């Protein structure tokens, strides 16, 4: 009998610490499957962010380096330049990549570092208790925007992927959404493309994943997926950006 | 023997280079040296100076509080450093860029190095004329060592300038004789 489904070698057999309905676990698994499929597990070095996914190294069965909040792409730059034969990726949230790490993000992209970036956009800071993120939608209630995000006070949702697409050295940017099984499959193929780009020395590749955070959106898991589809992806349209 | 020198002028006059040629020549002569530049927010035309120590003994602080020789290439530098000259120290002045000869210094020489440099065809070698004056007056360094220093310091692409620099040193020695 032909085996068509199995547990990825790159994923440790553990229950994750994430809340019910969270997108992190799905993306961790997708990355693990991709690493197995591309047969790069022995070459991969991941950079774990500060945020909910900081202990991603508990789940992945390959080398991982922790980075300070926002500094993942600087750390990744160092590793990849020193070990160009390894496959180096960062896994970052919206606060990490688009607020405190904006400078590192833009300059690593502008240098055209041959890196893969998995950018989880769930429009809030999860680990610290659901504060406003740069990607929080207008009107969205968070711990620090109790009356909803007000553009006159806090500006607008930051579209970092569109910003990065302006840079000559950036090779690939795609936005995907974990709002449905189809969305999960598209997410996998986009992230796989971003890894393949690095294997083929094409250059800086980033996949933005619209990912549910039911806890701090104060929704059920199902409502969260609907919200991504009906509300969030209006602000952050899915598809190939570059 | 310890000789402490302050060389001062404006950025672009080759102040740092003059200091480097002196220390290189001293080094070739088997002496210990330190060279300490003014640095940072300096611009072409702004103030520039360097402190040079050459000695047959160990050199401690590279900072020159009191100088045995002061080489002054413009007016503001004289005001800034004239108190730093030791009693009976040598004051070597570029008179081309100084309105009135100073009262200070028993042992001062006063020559128009910039004008002489223009006569030789390159305003930028006024520093080497001053070096000639220094060699002539202090007898610490020889002309031969200064020539070798220039050959060693000149970058690969600028070897053509060695000749005119040497000529300037000779002229400096001649006019201050």
């Amino acid at each position: 009998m032909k085996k068509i489904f199995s547990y990825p070698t790159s994923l440790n057999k553990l229950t994750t610490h994430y809340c019910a309905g969270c997108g992190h676990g799905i993306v961790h698994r997708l990355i693990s499957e991709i690493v197995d499929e591309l047969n790069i597990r022995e070459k991969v070095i991941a950079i774990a962010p500060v945020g909910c996914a900081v202990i991603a190294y508990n789940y992945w069965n390959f080398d991982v380096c922790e980075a300070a909040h926002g500094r993942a792409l600087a750390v990744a730059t160092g590793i990849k330049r020193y070990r160009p034969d390894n496959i180096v990726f960062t896994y970052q949230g919206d606060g990490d990549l688009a607020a405190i790490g904006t400078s590192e993000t833009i300059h690593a992209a502008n240098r055209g570092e041959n890196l893969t970036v998995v950018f989880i956009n769930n429009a809030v800071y999860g680990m610290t208790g659901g504060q406003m993120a740069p990607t929080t939608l207008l009107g969205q209630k968070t711990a620090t925007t109790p009356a909803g995000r007000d553009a006159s006070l806090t500006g607008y949702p930051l579209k970092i992927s569109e910003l990065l697409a302006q840079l000559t050295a950036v090779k690939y940017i795609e936005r995907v959404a974990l709002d449905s099984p189809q969305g999960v499959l598209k997410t996998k193929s986009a992230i796989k493309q971003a890894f393949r780009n690095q294997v083929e020395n094409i250059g800086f590749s980033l996949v933005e994943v619209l990912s549910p955070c039911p806890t701090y959106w104060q929704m059920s898991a199902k409502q969260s997926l609907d919200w991504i589809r009906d509300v969030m992806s209006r602000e952050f349209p899915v598809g190939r950006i570059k | 023997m310890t000789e402490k020198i302050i060389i001062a002028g404006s950025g672009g006059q080759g102040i740092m280079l003059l200091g480097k040629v002196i220390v290189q020549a001293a080094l070739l002569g088997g002496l210990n040296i330190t060279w300490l530049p003014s640095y940072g927010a300096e611009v072409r035309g702004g103030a520039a100076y360097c402190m040079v120590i050459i000695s047959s003994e160990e050199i401690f602080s590279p900072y020159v509080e009191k100088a045995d020789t002061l080489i002054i290439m413009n007016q503001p530098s004289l005001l800034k450093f004239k108190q730093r000259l030791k009693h009976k120290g040598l004051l070597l002045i570029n008179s081309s860029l100084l309105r009135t000869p100073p009262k200070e210094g028993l042992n001062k020489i006063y020559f128009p190095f910039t004008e002489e440099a223009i006569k030789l065809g390159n305003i930028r070698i006024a520093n080497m004329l001053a070096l000639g004056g220094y060699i002539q007056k202090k007898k610490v360094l020889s002309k031969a060592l200064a020539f070798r220093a220039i050959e060693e310091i000149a970058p690969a692409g600028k070897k053509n300038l060695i000749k005119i620099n040497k000529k300037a040193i000779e002229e400096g020695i001649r006019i201050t004789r």
Partner: protein
Amino acid sequence: MTGNEAIAEGAVQAGCVFYAGYPITPQNELTAYMAKRMAEVGRIFIQSESELAAINMVLGVSAAGGRVMTSSSSPGISLKQEGISYLAGCQLPCVIVNIMRGGPGLGNIAPSQSDYFQATKGGGHGDYHSIVLAPSSVQEAFDLMFSAFELADRYRNPVIILGDGMLGQMMEPIYCTRKKRTTQNAQRTTQKKWALTGCKARSPNIIRSLFLAEGKLEEINKILQKKYKKIQVQEQSWEGLFLEDAHTVFVAYGTMARIARGLMYGLRKKGMKVGLIRPISLWPFPLKAFCNLPGVRRYIVLEMSYGQMLEDVRLAVERKKSVEFFGRAGGGIPKEEEILKKFFKKKVEL
């Protein structure tokens, strides 16, 4: 060679494979030298977008097993403190050069020794130490780079080279033996079992400083403290002069020690029994230098600060001897005559 260039050349010869830095005076010659030399030897140079990025690139290379360095001057070193704390927490080796300038704030670009506390007492958050070495000549700046990389690797710990603007800018002749050392040191970087290289034929390596499980971080801190204790016992270094007969001992490091040395020789010529202790390792502070000196009546600490190393000297002598101090900061360089006037009643011509 200038001090800045000597440090850079020393790093290259000690096997530094990667340098990242951001422009700041008075250490720009170091960055420029690295830009040229690293390309010549086929290694990596990056002008980073910030000090934060530079120190985190350093963290990445160190995690991946490479000998790595960054450099800056005081305000830039403040920015690097975040990264230094993470490097210490992750037990990653690296070399950080601080060519100190006047502070606080943007301060000025004149030489200063006002970052002694920051360098020796931690600097970033958490209970950690960097090893701190203070060269006082261009030759020593070159030579100490070899020790710096060795110590960093041996203890898996950041090492700070603490110089000042005068040392960075001044030129002195140096002896450097080039080829042999370079190849030896380049080979050594391959033997780090903990490094991230891809988990081929081994279980995954993880570089981390986050330990949330109850009691785990305390355990890690105890491991760090044990390491620091070992460093304190084994790695104190200093230069002592005329300590056998000295009644008065100057204590000074770096550029300031050169001024002290000149004073000491001048005073000895007058028949005065003066000596010098010049700490080379500032952390660990050379407590041993102050042991068994029964003849010493007083120590005179000289710094280009308002008394930072002074505290360590006081701890070293445990109130048993008189400790006096003279210092200037903010760009002022202490003059021989003002030091003499303060501490020696007799007029001394040097």
